[in-house]
């Protein structure tokens, strides 16, 4: 089985979010970038398929040279090789089109992407990609087994979960649950050394145009002071929630 894991390069979850250039650009100053957490869960499941079922695992990113440390980290975790499509990822459609082109030239059986990137929270790439390449698609995937060309997937639904049966080629949008937090792997020294020798292929982007553009950013209005209520006066809390906040 050939697996492709789509890796989005995002600001670390603790990052302060600021903008420059008259609030039109995200300020990368001092921001640490990481593998999108949802993709890290997906990559860990891919490693399981590699170890248990002899799958090969390729990681891919649409990005400029600055994303290479993120791809190297994925190689250090254990992916076999990496592809970088050399372009600024302007929107989800642009990324999905670039990925679809590489996939059409390379035949993957299973494509693992994250449910959403934690930066722009698009949640677009996996579904768009599935539709573009005509593959089956399971979103919010929290469990996956593959046997031949049949796949059994578990999907989170509001208030529960659902089991599905489908066939390869398959795209999943995944998240925590496909593996547990404790199964995530921190690259060790050997992995990091080996990653240096693994192949990272750079592919030129095609000339797709994005379907959306960002014209500016805004920050939420600052929050007022908290109103403290004494634990001995909970009637007051109920009163405030009813009469002032009007939420009960």
């Amino acid at each position: 089985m050939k697996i492709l894991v789509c890796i989005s390069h995002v600001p670390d979850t603790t990052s302060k979010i600021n903008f420059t250039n008259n609030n039109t650009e995200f300020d990368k100053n001092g921001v640490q970038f990481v593998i999108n957490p949802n993709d890290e869960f997906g990559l860990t499941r891919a490693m399981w398929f590699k170890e248990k079922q002899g799958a090969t695992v390729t990681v891919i990113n649409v990005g400029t040279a600055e994303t290479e440390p993120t791809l190297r980290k994925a190689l250090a975790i254990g992916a076999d090789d990496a592809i970088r499509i050399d372009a600024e990822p302007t929107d989800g459609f642009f990324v999905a089109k670039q990925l679809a082109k590489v996939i059409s030239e390379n035949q993957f059986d299973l494509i693992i992407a994250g449910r959403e990137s934690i930066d722009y929270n698009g949640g677009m790439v996996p579904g768009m990609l599935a539709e573009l390449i005509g593959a089956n698609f399971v979103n919010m995937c929290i469990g996956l087994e593959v046997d031949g060309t049949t796949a059994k997937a578990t999907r989170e639904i509001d208030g529960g979960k659902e089991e599905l049966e489908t066939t390869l080629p398959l795209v999943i949008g995944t998240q925590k649950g496909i593996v547990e937090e404790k199964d995530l792997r921190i690259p060790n020294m050997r992995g990091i050394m080996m990653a240096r020798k693994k192949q990272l292929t750079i592919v030129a982007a095609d000339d797709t145009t994005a379907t959306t553009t960002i014209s500016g950013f805004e920050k939420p209005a600052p929050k007022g002071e908290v109103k403290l209520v004494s634990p001995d006066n909970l009637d007051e809390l109920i009163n405030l929630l009813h009469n002032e906040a009007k939420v009960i």
Partner: protein
Amino acid sequence: MSILIYTESENGTLKKAAFEVASYAAALAANAGSTVTAVTINSDNTEELYKYGVHKILKVSNDALTTFNAALYADVIKQAFDQENAKTLVLGSAANDKYLAPLLAIKLNAGYVPNVVALPESTSPLTLKRTAFTNKAFSLTQVTTENAIIGLAKNSFGLKEATTTGATEDFAPTLPASNTKVTNTDKATGKVTIADAEIVVSGGRGLKGPESWGMIEELAETLGAATACSKPVSDLGWRPHGEHVGQTGKPVASNLYIAVGISGAIQHLAGVNASKVKVVINNDPEAPFFKAADYGVVGDAFEVVPALIEKLKEYKANNA
């Protein structure tokens, strides 16, 4: 030219979010001088949509669509979009909406903007305010294609009544073959889900162990709320993963969020910032959550929560 909306239902009943989507689309149509058509799939209470400004309903009734299937549903919505010569599709932000929208973006050649929180800032080019960086910021996103898909963030526009008289038509789409089938569904019945809840009661590591959730569930039940938790709580297996909220978990956009024994780490706050009113119960006055909250109680959860349940029951009895 009309605006098409997809309205989600559960067990044959349209959800509140469907009426919010209708309200939003009606305001959009009023500004553009166009009309709103709703496509409903196996819903019984479709007439209610006329209260929120819908002009026409395409009613689909088909046993093959009883369980949600993204590929089939997307195909149905595309056929409705084409039939109505629509240019804009509006849907919500529930799990199923987010499953469908990217598929439809390709089928309809439409730019898709999710998590939209307000009516367009401009209609030419279509410019929408949406959340980004998990509620730490907003972006103004322009759609550069002729067709557009707007994913409305939950609880951002509200319900606006605008009664219309419309016509309901039976709509019989042709269904393609699907390679994906649901073999089992495991869903708690009679429980409010985080996605639909007006109020969410959430517990953190301060509750010490899974045995403390009795009082959290009782508080939730008293308020008709859903239960949720912080990430470590689900990582430790005290609560199911589906309850984990935050930047890497579920987003919460309820009217009221009550956080018990949760410190308020940046990753947790990111996922709950979209909730309108936040109440924090924590025994550490320095807990960062107090800076993000509207109301706070500094105290021991094991005393405050049972007392609050008692007071709420009294309050409910007096105001019944």
